[in-house]
């Protein structure tokens, strides 16, 4: 059996579903961030696989590089905000912040 586009797409779809599951079920903010990273990696895998097997130009791979950088930047900002939240509430449980509601 040769590994083709379909296999990569199925793997990416599985990663996406795992990420979505983690994002919706985790309460720990870092857990949610890990779910986000899974979904972003699924997107990267899709882009590279489509670029290699279907399109034949490298713009998909360049896009994947940009998305890796974006993921890093997003994680940096998110973790800074987690630290700030932790200093205030001594937890990073996203459910514990319930002063804003209505």
């Amino acid at each position, binding site marked *: 059996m040769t590994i083709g586009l379909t296999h990569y797409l199925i793997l990416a779809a599985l990663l996406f579903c795992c990420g979505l599951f983690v994002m919706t079920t985790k309460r720990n903010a870092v857990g949610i961030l890990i779910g986000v990273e899974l979904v972003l990696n699924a997107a990267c895998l899709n882009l590279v696989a489509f670029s290699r097997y279907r399109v034949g130009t490298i713009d998909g791979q360049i896009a994947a590089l940009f998305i890796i950088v974006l993921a890093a930047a*997003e994680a940096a900002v998110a973790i800074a905000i987690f630290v700030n939240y932790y200093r205030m509430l001594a937890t990073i449980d996203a459910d514990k912040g319930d002063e804003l509601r209505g």
Partner: protein
Amino acid sequence: MNVPTPNTWLPSADELHLFSPEFVLVGTIVAVLVVPLLVGRRPEVPALIAVLGCFVGLVATWAVSAQVADGPQAGMVPPSAGATPMLLADRFSVFYQLLLFLALGLITWLWLIGVQKRNGTDSTAERGGPEFFVLLLTSALGMMLMVSSLNLLVLIIAIETASLPSYALVASDKRSRLGAEAALKYVMFGATASAIMIYGVSLLYGRFGTLDLSVIASALDARYAELRSTVATFAPVTHVGVTDAVFWLGLAALGVGIIFKIAAVPMHYWCPDVFQGAPTEVTTWLSVASKAAGVGLLLRIVSLFTVTGPWPPPNLPPAVAGHTYAMTVAVLVGILAAVTCTVGNLAALRQENVKRILAYSSIAHAGYMMMAAAIIAAPSAASGVSAPTYNAGMAAVIAYLFVYLLMNVGAFGATALVVWQTGTDHLSAFTGLGRRAPWVALPLAVCLFSLVGLPPLGGFTAKWYLLLALGKSAATQPWLWVLVVVAVINTAISLYYYVRIIRQMYLRDDAALPAFRPPGGGVALVSACAIILLLLGTLWFSPLGRRAQALASDVYARPPAAHAELSHPM
């Protein structure tokens, strides 16, 4: 795999000139970072640099507007064969640059008042001036690029450039517990939405074999023509294939990201929490600029679905013509718009916090603006109705956004003055404001009546042009009348909660509450907004409409290189 040969690519001077407003913004960001190192960290320094940058940016925008007066100009075209532009400069993007520079100037003004007010009451008030402005200006840069991007990769980067600084801005008051909680909620929602959006973009890339929006538009045109020929001959309809399923999935995922930026239903949960927890000047910025950029992006994406043939296609019965991409997307946007403004208005009714009321009101207003995106810019050669040559939905949104900027800056600015004075943003803080600070209460009342949409204020003008555009387009899309009815009913609902604030200011009073003297700059800001709103409702009623039409893109505005040959026609 054909790897393009490496070459050095320098954009031409003309191309660079098209994007001078963005370059001015980048220069301002650098100056805000560097100059305080030389002259010391006083809060006035970065604010002055930002205001200066806004003025230079407005001049640059004015220069660009002359260049794009005849039609859209594509920029940043790589020299390799078949390459397509990355960015678009047209009258619509020029309007956004204008709006964002104006908003930046007003927010800077508000921020300066806030700093002086806080320094007066709180000696430990230490709010990073340069950091605040770097974040603010960077998010403005992202919002400008959002509206002018022609490539899905540039689009993603623009959205993230707008979003990441916004998350940090919400937490910019580092001693605020509410700010920390709001920022956490914002970043969690935002990261989730943008991850799903990026996955959707990867699906669209697979479906069309390109990241370029103009090539995708051409591919959709081709697909539409194919569908039309199939359906017209009453051959079996074969348009629900795997490729179309991937297209719809990708588009839906992309839509999640856009809807998050607009804070429309079902991605609106973050909005009231973030707006309440963030510092008020940041709330003002998010409620105006972030939403405006999201609506602009939505209009751009929807206008992709504009088909180049006559509408509805003459050889098709209307029921079949409805089965096209454009109609489906327009109906979906219309449904979301109607639900968004209804949910926003109904949820605002039971709020007790003024910033939350205004947050829900901004959700409702985003809903009104989304209604304009449901107008498919389509001439109706078949039915003989003379169609406008400009994009009617864009014109309505341009008029609406300009008024919305003034209404929201006025309302949030007045709220900020009260919050800084009393330390709370609960409705009770506004008790007897008509006696305690008449020159804050009066402009606030004007802005609130304008938000309702009562004549003779700017809000009425904006709604008038919006409903007019919807009504005119209903000749070809009869279901737009539903949106008109929904908008009118919602206006009636919204009257209740806006008037509640006004009643609290003028009809309730508590003698124990002292009068206070608001800072002069703040009174000037909110009064200026109120006066311009009055003028927009009376003297400038028709000039606003004319100017908005002149700034809207042409119906078929596609960038020059849009019809390059497809690498993968489908």
